[in-house]
């Protein structure tokens, strides 16, 4: 760690400011940018450490980009580094968002602004539909068509028709995932014998 603490903090801030301002498509879209800063440019971590960190971050809940920024900041220079990296990656875009939306809502009732907002809804719906398909597809790759379709159908009924809070559904599935016996590893052992 050369350069002392102030320089280190400055580098953390610049690195995560760049990540925040250039990462389109939400947190996952900024992963390659974080990799570039942390592994290639500043060499705070090597390839393997970064890979492990990413795998772990993916298994925990919550926004991905801030988990990575926070942990890397903490790893590089403690609690101050953590706060610095998180703020650098989120504050600029939150400010942009507030300024742009505040000015948009003051002209909301003008006809052409209404046209603009009406036109954007299908684009967002389409992007959500694509994201939906990607999640289905990854579930299918992990546990096959039948289990994915059955689980999805049950979840859909619980959420849409019975009005169960998604948090309860997710909680129940987490309990199932941890509580279930490891059938796959048992059969593998059986096959070996």
């Amino acid at each position, binding site marked *: 760690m050369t350069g002392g603490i102030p320089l280190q903090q400055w580098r953390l801030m610049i690195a995560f400011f760049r990540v925040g301002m250039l990462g389109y498509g939400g*947190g996952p879209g900024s992963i390659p940018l974080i990799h570039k800063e942390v592994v290639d440019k500043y060499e705070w971590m090597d390839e393997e450490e970064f890979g492990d960190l990413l795998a772990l971050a993916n298994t925990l809940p919550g*926004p991905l980009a801030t988990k990575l920024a926070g*942990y890397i900041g903490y790893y590089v220079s403690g609690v101050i580094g953590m706060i610095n990296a998180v703020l650098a990656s989120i504050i600029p875009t939150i400010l942009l968002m507030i300024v742009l939306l505040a000015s948009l809502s003051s002209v909301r009732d003008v006809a052409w602004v209404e046209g603009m907002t009406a036109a954007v809804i299908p684009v967002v719906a389409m992007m959500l539909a694509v*994201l939906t398909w990607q999640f289905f597809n990854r579930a299918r790759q992990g546990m096959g068509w039948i289990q994915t379709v059955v689980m999805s159908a049950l979840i859909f009924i619980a959420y849409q028709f019975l009005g169960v809070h998604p948090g309860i559904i997710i909680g129940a599935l987490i309990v199932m995932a941890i509580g279930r016996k490891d059938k796959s590893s048992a059969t593998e052992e059986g096959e070996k014998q």
Partner: protein
Amino acid sequence: MKYWHIFLAFFIPGILGYGGGPASIPLVENEVVRRYGWMSVQEFSEMLALANSLPGPIATKLAGYIGYEQGGILGSVIGVFAAVAPSLILMIVLLGVLYKYKDSPKVQRLTLYVRPVIAILLGVMAWRFFHTSIEGIGVWQMLLITISSFLLIERMRVHPAIVIGVTLVYGAFVL
């Protein structure tokens, strides 16, 4: 009370949203539109469109903006804190433990089981957006915009910010 609600509205999606920011969008919508009624479906989709066309992490942009709308700067800070802090603290505390078991079938199954839930939540939300859009601009306009934006973003790999920009211009002059 307001600040407590803002905290809860982003704490819950933060602690339940597996798969990064986009996975927590439907959870945020559940709190903000369905539970607290801070926004209509229409307003939420407008905000989401803008959030998607801006750079940076999506979950914190939503928390920061909705928090600001509901409770000013303090509301914004509380929203962002609720979205970020719990999972970040969990990450730092659990790093050692989960790192040790990251190849365990239980931990891998955890991520896998949650995917269909996220897919359903996103799918229901997409359907509602399409529905709102048909009511607003009719089936044909909706299909035209949906199909052309799909081709541009997913097939021709045009950046979403550009497509959204062009769509805004189209809406301003044509709709």
